[in-house]
């Protein structure tokens, strides 16, 4: 997935849409929006990022999970299998992005890239609701997918590449 920080307005629609789509309880979220302002009035710049699990290629959360509940699914998507999760919190502590949270039902939850929708040929809820269309989703290895096209065209970055997790959420800058 790619997020265009130049178009995102921080409206948080992606967050509400995720909540209503994925039964995320009120008071919790799988995605969130960060706004970074830099400079001195009137020389200013803002970067707005809709963030979520990075579905890291080298995911520490998967590595440290003692039960295998956290796992790579088809396509490199990182998922948590709820009835294998013991709620030990190791994966939460291992995620440099704080992308996971303990669900009140006990297991740990996080962004699934809306795999249940993607499965049906739909886009993830956050992508399909975003009013500025600043979220791009698709197959990174298909050169014609929305994501690949936009990543080729634009400059991008990932978050905390130093942490070595090889994140798969790209921020267009």
């Amino acid at each position, binding site marked *: 997935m790619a997020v265009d920080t130049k178009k995102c307005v921080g409206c948080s629609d992606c967050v509400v849409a995720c909540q209503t789509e994925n039964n995320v309880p009120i008071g919790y979220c799988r995605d969130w929006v960060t706004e970074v302002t830099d400079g001195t009035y009137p020389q200013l710049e803002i970067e707005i990022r809709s963030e979520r699990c990075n579905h890291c290629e080298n995911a520490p959360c998967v590595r440290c999970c003692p039960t295998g509940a956290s796992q790579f699914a088809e396509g490199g998507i990182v998922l948590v299998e709820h009835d294998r999760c013991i709620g030990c919190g190791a994966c939460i502590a291992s995620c440099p992005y704080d992308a996971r949270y303990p669900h009140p039902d006990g297991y740990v939850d996080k962004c699934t890239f809306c795999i249940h929708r993607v499965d049906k*040929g739909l886009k993830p809820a956050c992508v399909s609701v975003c009013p500025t269309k600043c979220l791009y989703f698709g197959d990174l290895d298909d050169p014609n*997918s929305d994501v690949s096209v936009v990543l080729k065209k634009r400059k991008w970055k990932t978050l905390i590449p130093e942490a070595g997790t090889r994140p798969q959420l790209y921020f267009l800058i």
Partner: protein
Amino acid sequence: MRTTRRQFIKVSALGAGGLALAGSSMKWTAASTLLNSLTGGVEPTRTPTYCEICFWQCAGWVYKDQAGNIKKIIGNDDDPHCNGRLCPRGTGGVGMYADEDRLKTPLIRTTVDGQDTFREASWDEALDLVAKRFKEIGAQYGPETIALFTHGSGGSHFGHMLKAFGSQSITAPSFAQCRGPREVAFLATFGDIIYSPERTDIRDTKCLVLIGSHIGENMHNGQIQEMSDAIDKGASIITVDPRYSTAASKSKFWLPIKPATDMALLLAWMNVLIENGWYDKEYVERHTVGFEQLKAHVKPFTPEWAYGITTLDPNMIRRTAKEMHDASPSVIIHPGRHVTWYGDDTQRLRAVAILNALLGSWGRRGGFYNPEKAHVPEFPFPAFPKPARTPRESYAGKYNLANEVVSNGMVDATIPSEGNTFNFKAWIVNGTNLLASLPNQANTLKALDALEFLVVVDTMPMEITGYADVILPECTYLERYDMIRKSGHREPNIAVRVPAAEPKYNTKPADWIARELGIKLGLEAFYPWKDIEEMLDWQLQQLGTSLEEMKRIGVKKFPREFDDLYFTEGQDISFNTNSGKIELYSSDMEAEGLPPMPVYTAHEEPPSGYYRLIYGRAPMHTFSRTANNPNLTDLMDENVIWVNPKVAKLWGLKAGQYIKLRNQDDVLSTFAIKVRVTERIRWDSVYMVHGFGHDNKKLSRAFGRGVNDTEMITNVKVDPAMGGTGMRSNFVTFVTEFDEKEAKA
């Protein structure tokens, strides 16, 4: 991991077909079943609606889970208002339905032990009481002294009932507190108004100029979507705002103007366009009157002159004028929407209209298109009686250019005063929290005090409901039918609202309430239909569709019948103005004794130690109506006061600290507000989001959270042209010492 990434999920371009599951592993299956159980698996039935959280009225689909609870709302792909994408408030609309603080049953004011309180009542009893009092007041003072203040869908139902009863005293805060000045200014200039949704062709524009319009925070859906599309297509955006708005951060040029000085900038832009010949000569020649007068009028208003007033770099003023010229006619000097700022707003919007005329953007692609509405016939009913007096007569001689009824004019007329014999005696307030939406609360309270009877129709216990004699709880938009949405757009279209669930608690839809009340008032003749379904179905049949079909499709488009989306080049056009031309020199304004061409007036400046209070929108809330919505308070549960770091340092304010505010008239805010120290605001102003600081204790999430900006707006600059209430000449200072307990309540 390389290899798995190679099979990264394939989303087919058409959204069909889906994912290649070749060689799907055990893991995948496990995960899918797991996710299906989480999300309920199958998609249950969906019901069409259009959103009521703001007045963009996006059409969408309401989904329920198997237990019948409303779970999510998704935009309707065929809807030109939303293109299948609701805004955060629309998506969070489920919270309006779920909110457990909702009004649950009719309430009647009574006195117990000398204290006013509400008691629960049946609908029959409550409506009997309303009918009885309306009959008495109608008989004693005339039915036209019963006024309707309304905002939103219920207005047509209550309006119908009231008109049948003999009163046309109907008004909304969406004119004199909102769009009024721009509609009047554009009417005076082009002979037509902007409408809602705005007729701005942002999708195809090459240059969008936003003057205080904070699109992106102002989440009017179609505009934000089209602005984003325009950015993609390389359009340049110019934002004029004393605050580094979200839109400013997306702009090629941001002009950090000193607040209240926009007129000087607009005049300077005209000066530059005319002096450099950067205006559309052909267009101006063919379609406008008054160019020579305008040219002479703006001659002295050079960018250097404007610099002294606006603090904007003259080169920047020239540079941005050039940018507009280069894009012309695909350029939009956006008229904004909430434009009641400084009391000379009609003039400022006239200046905006003139700039658009000079650049030839009106009626051109990428400028302003010609919208068209679907013609929805009315179910036949007898003609309404002619009211003895029109509401305008209550403020006779004032606001003559107003093309809609002036709410504050009617509020003033409710307060008995010498010489005014047309006082309103009873109000129905439907869907408008007047204590948050009308400035000068003291005045509103005086009017409420003077009333003999107040009925409030609302979904939530708000400030206004506290003053009611009778509270009628409406169900939310997700639980009711309403009239067909038929606002104009590029293509004529309609949308329907169908209840997705039974009304919760003992609430009722406005159409039912109004009709029952009408029947109790003896107005059966005006309700020849059995119920709203029959009425809607009849209307839809006339349009070649039916309620049954609309329940399946939600939105229907029709081909354009009248003129084209844009003017045909080289053709003369007759404008609906006095001269039949675009009036750069306004005969309407002149006739009112107002400047026919915009003039700059200096506005009040903050006294020392005070800062101008400016306010606006947060993308996740609408005015005061969403402040208790569980889904939306989850995103933002209070407003904060933006303070420039220099000011914060001067006052020793720390980010996150709670303070109270005191305004120039010594009004102290009821609650405290959290400080946000940010470079995004000028040092002479502070900023907050409108709609917080609720003081109705029944709002469990919203009570006492933040400050109500309306409380601080006591200095109101009324626009002489149309009665708009300028709200931005208020200044606040910081109060750091106060009783914490009382403030956090």
